[in-house]
């Protein structure tokens, strides 16, 4: 149905019919399944020699899975691939690398305690047992002038800013003889100037004859960068090799998100109370992930705000700052009139609850169910006297909550880590939801839960709103946002790209915001 849609709209008009010059790489009918999830379903993909081909899609669309299969890090269930005219079936990443496919991931792989030159020689295919560092330095200088990079060969990787580290990584791949480069979300941590530099040397690489697969969810930069684009959604190709310059990016963005019509949604009409959470021009800098830039919004009691966006656009920073765990460089977070910015104790006292995205962080897995359940409230009079914990009371309370939140087995002495994932999630919910939170920050609350368990969890989150709490749901799952949220905030590169009432949510609007089309940067570049 989707294909019909795109054809009708003439998106792929020129690309499929023109007789292709020689393909650098082609893959037919790539499928891959993980358990119940069909990550890729009969995907066809072709890369012309000397082109930059953008691979676009939101979380879980299958971009990285496809990249891993091409680079050899993952085996497809079915696929027939050709690389430079030869049949190609890599058994490992190393295998792929020796065929000339280099995969530069978001988490860079250089050893941080070594210099760039040392990294160049370390693990190099066919390297001599003793590193020739002088040659490495000369080689780096050569590539730097060739591609106009600015990588200092003898600096520790750790001392380089992220943009240069990434240049070093790409340089290493090229120097090792990459004939095909896959860049996975290379611009996600870069500022506008650095992105421009990245685009510059991608073009120089292309001129040098190296085709590039460029994975991204940010459309604006693609107009300058890429030649063609392919859009994946839920493991299927929805746009195949369209010409970037001719494509309507807003349409592409909408296709990327898919159909989010709201036919089935019915909101129980709730009376909202007073403002309980006020976020005032919050700016946060994070060490190793995207922070926040001048964010303001308010949530009233009984209101559920959904925060959407492609993962890694400031969600982590938002969750941590709302719950007092991260400091802000500017602005503040106020819950019920009390400032909690950078003060977890104040947040706990203000009854702020946090369903952590990662259960391994939200629970003390080596401690018992009982210890986990009361960890928030151990100093309450109910659970301790004169600084001594009342163990039997803690245990019976834990047994009670385990029963109420359906934690199996309901054994208060079992190690939290011995429970299954779903039960761990319920255990965390028991700790965070039992006491009528003023603000609940739920980060990916149903990730990895089965539909039944997800429904129960969503009901519980609703219950918080019904008792007058403010709720912020951070989720990449649009289905979930549609079911829970009254209002939607779209995060893109740490900024609020758009914000609207749930009934105004449409594919076009959401897609545009998520793909960065409503960014100021984009508008500016359009004006020029």
């Amino acid at each position, binding site marked *: 149905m989707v294909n019909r849609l795109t054809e009708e709209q003439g998106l792929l008009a020129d690309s499929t019919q023109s007789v292709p010059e020689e393909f650098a790489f082609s893959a037919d009918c790539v499928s891959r399944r993980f358990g119940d999830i069909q990550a890729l379903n009969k995907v066809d993909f072709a890369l012309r020699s000397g082109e930059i081909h953008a691979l676009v899609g939101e979380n879980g669309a299958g971009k990285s899975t496809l990249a891993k299969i091409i680079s050899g890090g993952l085996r497809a269930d079915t696929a027939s691939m050709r690389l430079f005219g030869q049949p190609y079936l890599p058994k490992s990443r190393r295998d792929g690398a020796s065929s000339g496919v280099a995969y530069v991931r978001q*988490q860079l792989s250089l050893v*941080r*305690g070594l210099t760039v030159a040392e990294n160049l020689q370390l693990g190099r295919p066919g390297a001599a047992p003793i590193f020739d560092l002088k040659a490495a330095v000369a080689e780096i200088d050569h590539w730097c002038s060739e591609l106009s990079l600015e990588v200092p060969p003898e600096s520790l990787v*750790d001392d380089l800013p992220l943009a240069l580290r990434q240049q070093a990584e790409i340089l290493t791949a090229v120097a090792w003889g990459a004939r095909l480069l896959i860049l996975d979300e290379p611009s996600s941590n870069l500022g506008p100037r650095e992105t421009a530099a990245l685009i510059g040397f991608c073009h120089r690489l292309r001129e040098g004859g190296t085709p590039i697969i460029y994975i991204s969810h940010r459309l604006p930069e693609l107009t300058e960068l890429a030649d063609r684009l392919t859009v994946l959604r839920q493991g299927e190709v929805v746009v195949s090799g369209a010409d970037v310059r001719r494509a309507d990016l807003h349409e592409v963005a909408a296709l990327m998100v898919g159909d989010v019509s709201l036919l089935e949604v019915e909101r129980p009409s709730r009376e909202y109370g007073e403002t309980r959470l006020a976020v005032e021009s919050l700016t946060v800098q*994070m*060490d*190793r*992930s995207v922070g926040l830039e001048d964010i303001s919004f308010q949530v009233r009691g009984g209101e559920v705000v959904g925060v959407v966006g492609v993962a890694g656009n400031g969600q*982590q920073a938002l969750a941590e700052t709302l*719950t*007092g*765990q991260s400091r802000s460089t500017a602005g503040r977070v106020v819950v019920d009139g009390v400032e909690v910015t950078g003060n*977890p*104790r104040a*947040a*706990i*006292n203000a009854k702020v609850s*946090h369903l*952590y995205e990662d259960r391994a*962080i*939200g*629970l*003390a*897995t*080596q*401690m018992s169910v009982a*210890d986990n359940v009361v*960890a*928030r409230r*151990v*100093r309450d009079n109910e659970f*301790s006297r004169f*600084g*001594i*914990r009342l*163990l*039997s009371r803690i*245990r*019976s309370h834990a047994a009670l909550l385990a029963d109420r939140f359906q934690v199996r087995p309901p*054994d*208060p*002495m079992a190690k939290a880590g011995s429970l299954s994932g779903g039960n761990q999630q319920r255990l965390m919910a028991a700790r965070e939801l039992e006491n009528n939170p003023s603000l609940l920050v739920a980060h990916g609350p149903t990730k990895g839960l089965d539909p039944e368990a997800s429904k129960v969890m969503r009901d519980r989150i609703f219950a918080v709103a019904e008792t007058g709490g403010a709720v912020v749901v951070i989720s990449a799952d649009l289905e979930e946002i549609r079911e829970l949220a009254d209002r939607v905030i779209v995060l893109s590169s740490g900024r609020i790209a758009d914000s609207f009432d749930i009934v105004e949510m449409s594919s076009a609007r959401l897609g545009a915001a998520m793909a960065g089309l409503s960014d100021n940067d984009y508008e500016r570049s359009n004006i020029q």
Partner: protein
Amino acid sequence: MMLLPEQVMRLDVWKHRFRNVMQPSSLALGVAFVIGGVLLLGFGEDPIAAYSAMLRGAFGSRFAIGETLARAAPLALVGFGAAVALRAGLVTLGAQGQVMTGAIGALLTALMFEDAPSAIALPAAAIGGAVFGMAWALLPAVLRAYWRVNEILSTLLFTEFAFLLLKYLLNDPLKPPRAITPQSVEFPENASLGLVLGGTRFHYGILIVPVACLGFAWWIRSTRGFEYDLYGENSVLAKGLGVSERRVIVSSLLISGATAGLVGWIQVAGLLNRVYVQIAAEIGFFGLVVAFLGGARPLGVLAAAVLFGALQSGGLSMQSAEGIPASLSDIIQAVILLGFSVRYAPQIASLFDCIADRMMPSRRTN
């Protein structure tokens, strides 16, 4: 027999403890003695005779029991302190040095109160020992809490400093006029700890061990101790729940410093009467081992300390009675340790992970 739900729960607790701690411990112990027995056979000795000599040497007489306890007490005390730090996720190798400075502190304080009545001089010396032990832990604690300087390395380094300081003091300022070997002046009589059992080495200082054990049990049950456990288990979560990271690090390292300092005190005030270069022997390091083996729990640490005390005193008397080298008991200690390392392999591995994370922050992802 009908059990009330409350009792069932308590029974469950013990079942968990048995499964998690006692069962593997006794297994490791058994295996160690079997391996030791095979070694003895290999050397042409009778294992039964050797072990019974060892047992007699450890528990067979008033003297033997006193000896075992005198050796177990410092291990237990250091073990409790190390366990407090261990539970907070900190590994301190500083006890060795803190025993030395504790002994010096106790001696210096006692010398200051030389003319005071015992009732003042004795506790003063104890406090002096504890304070000097703590002082030696302070800088590593602050470095760790404020600048993330790895505590394992800094405490090890501070042990070296303590040893050099001790050697200097015993070769010059504290050395009695006509002594040839490095040693301190005598510990003042009025601050000394007497013997509980005459003719043995069972001195009054050993009686702090049960007190410390109760204190440690109280610590574990306290809300604060719980927060420290939580920090040790999952520091991100603990901080999210409002636990102060700096406070946990500084306090737990200071507590372990204080207990090691107390060990310095009981060794000089109850056992040796002078400070020697070897005052700490290997107490600091074995104390950490005891804390590990005891699962960082009060009774576990106590049992591990008595076991190691018994192996040490039993080993020595096995040597004198049967002519079997005492190093055999060292081997048994080592095999026990090995057995436990296997048992704790995942925990130890995760400990190393956590150390690696700390030394290379890049391994942590946000």
